[in-house]
């Protein structure tokens, strides 16, 4: 996968988190690969997790099975981007 494609996916993941969690521009722009998500962001409850997954599916054209969902993929922003990159068609 080209670095440009990865960058597009990262931008999409960021937009999904901003939209679903209602993050301010400042908080969204402060997200780094190591920024913790699940357990660290109070907005990320189970309904929000479902919203993030469904929006990622729609916007990236991917399919996420429920048994692929675990704490690890949502541990940090970088982990979620890596998950999305691995799922994206290439």
């Amino acid at each position: 996968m080209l670095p440009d494609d990865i960058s597009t996916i990262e931008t999409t993941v960021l937009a999904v988190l901003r939209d679903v969690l209602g993050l301010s521009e400042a908080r969204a722009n402060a997200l780094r690969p190591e920024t913790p998500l699940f357990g660290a962001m109070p907005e990320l409850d189970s309904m929000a997790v479902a919203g993030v997954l469904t929006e990622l599916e729609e916007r990236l054209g991917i399919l996420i099975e429920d048994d692929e969902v675990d704490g690890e993929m949502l541990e940090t922003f970088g982990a979620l981007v890596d998950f999305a990159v691995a799922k994206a068609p290439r």
Partner: protein
Amino acid sequence: MIDYYDWRGGREAMLRFGPETGPIVMIAMPLFEEANRIRAFVVTLCRTLAARGIASALPDLPGQGESLLPTEAARLDDWRTAFAAAAARLGKRPYGASLRSGAAVDGEAALAGRWRLSPLSGAAALADLRRAEAAGMKMRSETVAELDDTGSPPQLLAGNRVSPSLLRALADDAALAIPDGPLRTLRLTSDPQPADRKVDAAPLWRRAEPGNDPALATLLADDIAAWIAQCGG
């Protein structure tokens, strides 16, 4: 104004906005949690419509919103019947505006046309609930049980006690109904499904903390007003 409507299962509240003359829009709210998330936004939309001379009505469905009926007593058929009864109470033939899974309950109502925002079927709304429930269990490291829609006790799905009958009816509601009469569909730019118009906005119905978006309310109110004018209202 807080009005009400009667249907065969009882009486439910219905908020009314706008003038007593002119066209009236019957709003079908999304099912379950999404309704809470966009309630403030929808009230802004209704007030914005009122400023354009368009009245609107926002009925509570039985077992949803402020309804006294417990959620586990809710049935999909009853929602459709109740929504139709609410529309009939308005006197003149209203236009329908359904938001998200509200499109799954407006099918029986006598409407002059249907305007839909990011519609989804009952089955898709149920899939969202199931996913939230599964995500919650995963995050708590509990075993995700197979969903049982054969038994009799209601199931707890993302905080909603859903009866087996409602589960089955939603699961069977696989596709959006294509109604007779005028239909206009709007979706967000981020949504790849086809629509008559794509709107660049964030999906407020996903927000854990209910938000508002007056700019989007203005855009949608203008779209609804233009559509009603085009329909001959």
